[in-house]
Each structure stands twice: as C-alpha cells, then as structure tokens.
C-alpha cells in the first residue's frame, strides 16, 4: 500500500510589520491580511495588538503577535525566531517610530537621551531587523519598506530629532537598496504624508488635527506598491499621498 504524500499547499506570502497596532500600521496590517499574507505583527502594547490580530485573522491567514519594543534585541530575536518556521520572508515593513518628547522641543532644548532613543528606534532598529531577516528575505527575493516622513526633508521647528532620524533612515534605505540588489532584496522608503494619528496628535498636543486625513488615505498606495515588480521600485522614495506613483523613469 502506498501512502500518498501530503499535497503541498500553495506557498503563502509572509510579512513582518512593526508598529502594527495603531495608525498607519493598523491600515497596512489589514491590507496585508486581506491580500492573503501570513503576518508577524509587532507592537509595544498588548491590548491593541491583540485586537488588531483578531481583526486580521478574519481573513483566514496566520497572525503571530510579538509584544515588545523594536529597539530591544529580545523583541527582534523573537521576530527572527518566529520567521524561522516560514520558508522565507516576502515583506518587512519597518513602521514603528519614536516621535520624541511631546510637545516637540526645539533642538536647543532636546535631551541627548531623547535624541538617542529616537535614533535607536527609527534608524538602528529598522537596520537591525534588516540585518537579522536578510537571509529569510533573500530566500523570497523580498521587499523592505522603511516608513519615512516629510519631516526628513522639512526642517520644521520641533521636528529636528524625528526629522533627522528619518533622513538617516532614507539614506539607510537607499544604501541598502544598492547593497542588497545582488541578493535580490528590494528596499523602498515611503513618506505616508500628513495623517490624523496618535503620533501626529502627540506632536501637536491639544491642537485640532481633524483637517488631516485618516491613515487609510494611504491604503491605495500600499495596494499599488505591493503589486509592483520589486526591481521597478527598489531604491525609490515614495510619497503615498502624491498625484503620481511610478518608477520615475
């Protein structure tokens, strides 16, 4: 008697998303789940992360919660360990970001501890995740998305630490795009534009920010980006709310 070997199912796409529980991360998580990705979602607060995960599971895929701070090595180790069960990683979205003190202080009053924290979360942690997940990303010729900000180019008073960290992240993204090309890993930076999020509110405590669009305004951009051939987008910096998305030929 021959035992039929189990039919391998179709290979499911896989993604790691940080800062998943609120704002922009929540929008991206919902889209990825809807598009049929298996997900590892990372955030510091367990309750909103569990709620997000429950929502994402309605689409039928696997959703793994990792509670922790991305600047903490233990969090990243857990993420890497969890991806080990997958054959590889298709997508890493570095979305978790640290704004700095609220209200935003001018640079002359910024503490070095705050600056250090902003850079550890916004520059070092995304890079460390790429380093740790590069083998898994290479197996799927995956895509890394680093979430940037218009503050990276703005010079807006009060946004110095955050803006400088995102400018650094932009250069990390561009450099990685070149360095990882041979490994088949694509890297893009995305400026989602002004949005009505908890982070944006923290930047303007007590002010009315209701004129800003909700983060789901960027949903069509993510749907577009995820549908592009990686070779076409790597090295680009996109504005999710701009009039035109393209390869910029």
């Amino acid at each position, binding site marked *: 008697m021959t035992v039929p070997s189990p039919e391998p199912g179709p290979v499911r796409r896989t993604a790691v998303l940080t800062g998943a529980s609120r704002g922009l991360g929540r929008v991206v998580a919902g889209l990825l789940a809807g*598009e049929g990705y298996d997900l590892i979602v990372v955030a510091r607060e367990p309750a909103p992360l569990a709620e997000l995960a429950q929502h994402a599971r309605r*689409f039928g895929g696997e959703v793994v919660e990792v509670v922790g701070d991305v600047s903490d090595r233990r969090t990243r180790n857990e993420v890497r360990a969890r991806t080990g069960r997958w054959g590889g990683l298709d997508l890493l979205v570095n979305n978790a970001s640290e704004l700095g003190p609220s209200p935003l202080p001018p640079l002359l009053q910024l503490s070095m501890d705050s600056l250090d924290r902003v850079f550890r979360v916004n520059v070092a942690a995304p890079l460390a995740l790429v380093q740790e997940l590069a083998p898994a990303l290479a197996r799927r010729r995956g895509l890394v998305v680093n979430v940037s900000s218009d503050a990276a180019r703005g010079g807006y008073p009060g946004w110095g630490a955050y803006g400088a960290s995102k400018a650094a992240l932009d250069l990390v993204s561009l450099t990685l795009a070149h360095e990882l090309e041979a490994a088949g890993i694509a890297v893009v930076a995305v400026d989602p534009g002004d949005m009505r999020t908890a982070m944006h509110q923290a930047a303007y405590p007590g002010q009315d920010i209701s004129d800003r669009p909700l983060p*789901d305004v960027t949903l*069509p951009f993510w*749907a577009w980006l995820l549908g592009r051939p990686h070779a076409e987008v790597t090295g680009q910096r996109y504005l999710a709310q*701009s009039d*035109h998305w*393209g390869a910029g030929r």
Partner: protein
Amino acid sequence: MSARSYEFDRPRGLEARAPPESRGLARDEVRFLVTDDGGSTHHRFRELPDLLAPGDLLVVNASATLPASLPVRGDAGEFLLNVSTQYGDAVWLAEPRFGVGSPGPVPLDPAAPLSSGAVQFHPIGPFPGIERLWFFRADGSVPAAMTERGRPIRYGYVDEAYPLAAYQTVFSRVPGSAEMPSAGRPFSARVLDALRDRGVGVAEVLLHTGVSSLESEAGGAELPPVYPEPFDVPRETAERIRATREARHRVIAVGTTVLRALETAWDGCRVAPRSGFTRLVLGPGRPVRSVDGLVTGFHDPRTSHLALLFGLAGEERVRTAYSEAVERRYLWHEFGDSHLLWRPGAG
C-alpha cells in the same frame, strides 16, 4: 471647492440611451459643439478635420474596453461586480452593484468571498472615502472570467445591453479599461483619413479607466475623491507634443483620460515620458498646461470632469457653452454628442 460650485441645471432626458448607430447615425455623425474665443458653433463630428489646422496634434487613448461587469454570487445573493482597476497580480478594485440600474452598497464581509464561475473574490476593505468601491483579492484568472462571463459595464440610463464592440473606439488597442474612453468613439476611418490629408497628427497615450458609477457621483457636499488609474505617456508621444508646441501648433487631448495622463506627465515645462498610476485632480486650483484643446463628451453637474473643464477653459466659457448645449438638446454620456473646447487664446 465644494460640489455646489459645479452645479448646473441639466434637464432629464438628455442622456443618450443608445449608441448613435441604433438612432440611425454613423458614429461620426453625432453632433459636435465647438467652443472657442468667439463662442460656440454647431457641427457634426465628421467636420473635425476642417476645424483643425495643419500641424495640430490629436492625442488619443489607446486603451480598449474590457467586459468588466461580472455576475457574482455571495451572501447578499446574485448581483454584479464591476471590476475597475488591477493593483497587483491578485488585487483588484471593484464595485459590487445589485444591478445595472441599482447601485450598492452591497453588504460585504471579509469572511464571505464572492464567486464568479471559477474565480473567487475575497473582500479586503473599502476604498478610503469611496464606500461603494472595495479592494478584492482574486483567486483565479479575472481576465478569463471576463472573457467567459463578463459584459460591458452599463448604467440604468442605457436602454439595453450592447455588444462589447459598441464600447470600443478606432483607437482601442490595449485592453484594460473598465469603461470606454468615450471621447474617441465618434472617430471613424473616414475622419482619420481626412485628418491625415489635412496634416493633423495623431499620437497615443494609455490610461485604463476605472468605473465611473455615474449615479453615485453626484450627491455629497464635496466632489468625491478620485482613485488612481494606470497610465503611460510613451517617449514618442512626449516628443511629438514637444515638437508640435515648438512649431506653435496646437495639441488637443481626446478625452479627459488623455488630459489626466498628459498633466501627470507634465514636468513643469513640458510633457515628459512617464508611466505609473495617477491620482491627479484637475480643476481651477490646478489648471491645465499641457494642451490647447479638449475633445470630450458632455459631463454631469457636480463631477470632477466638470471641474477639469473649468481648469482648462475657465468657468464662464464652460457655463456659457453648457447652457447652449442644454438649450439645443445635445446628448450626454458615452453614446452622446461631442464637444471641442479650446482654452482661451488657442482656438
């Protein structure tokens, strides 16, 4: 600008309910309103070549219409899924409707896919700000489902189902539009011959149109958001536009789709080769720079298309022309009459 800024009075009954062929007219025999610095004059479309000058360049949309309206079955019963725009391999934007004349919203649940033959559409979520449009993940070949089961998208004002051929133009070459880029519809072989004899050029761009869901557009206090559509302005076309303008001849967009593509490709001083997805909104706040005139149909009140006309020719010129069109009972929509609108100083 609020939607009220784009209000005008269009009596009922001016929708073209059928193609001109079924009204006993050739495609190029529809009526043709021409609006320039001197006001509006009344013509038939086939006179177009005589109304242009040697050296002028028409830019047309080479996108062909898909049979994009699929019958589907879901928890809400049997209804239609009008497939609008492909975002990636399996992700599509689409509008579920109860029927040709009955828009949604049809209630959807991520856990309950819609099926059309062998294809399953898994609802992902609504398009931000446009509740009637949803993103879907498709299991199976959507183009194959369209070929087997699709019909051209149709709305309630069109009297009956017409074959896909009625929704193609002489320029239709690359399938991809959910709805016909209808400004090109009155063009015929004999008009193209006459244009060539006259020394008028024709160049192509691509913009694959999504669904318009006409009856849902006019409603809210704000103009509805636009959703991104794929486009391509090839190098050769950008080059011909540059040469035409340098020789002080005129560039005429055939359709608002072409105009959107060209304006998206505008780099600040000229039309550059460019492709991707555009979500550009044109209007008085973002005037038109890339063309001198526009051949188009007649557009409904409170729509982004009307805002675009204001951005091309100014509100007063458009309102005066539209009053005349209403008075003379020109026909609206995809099977209707045609309009050549010059921007001030161009025609």
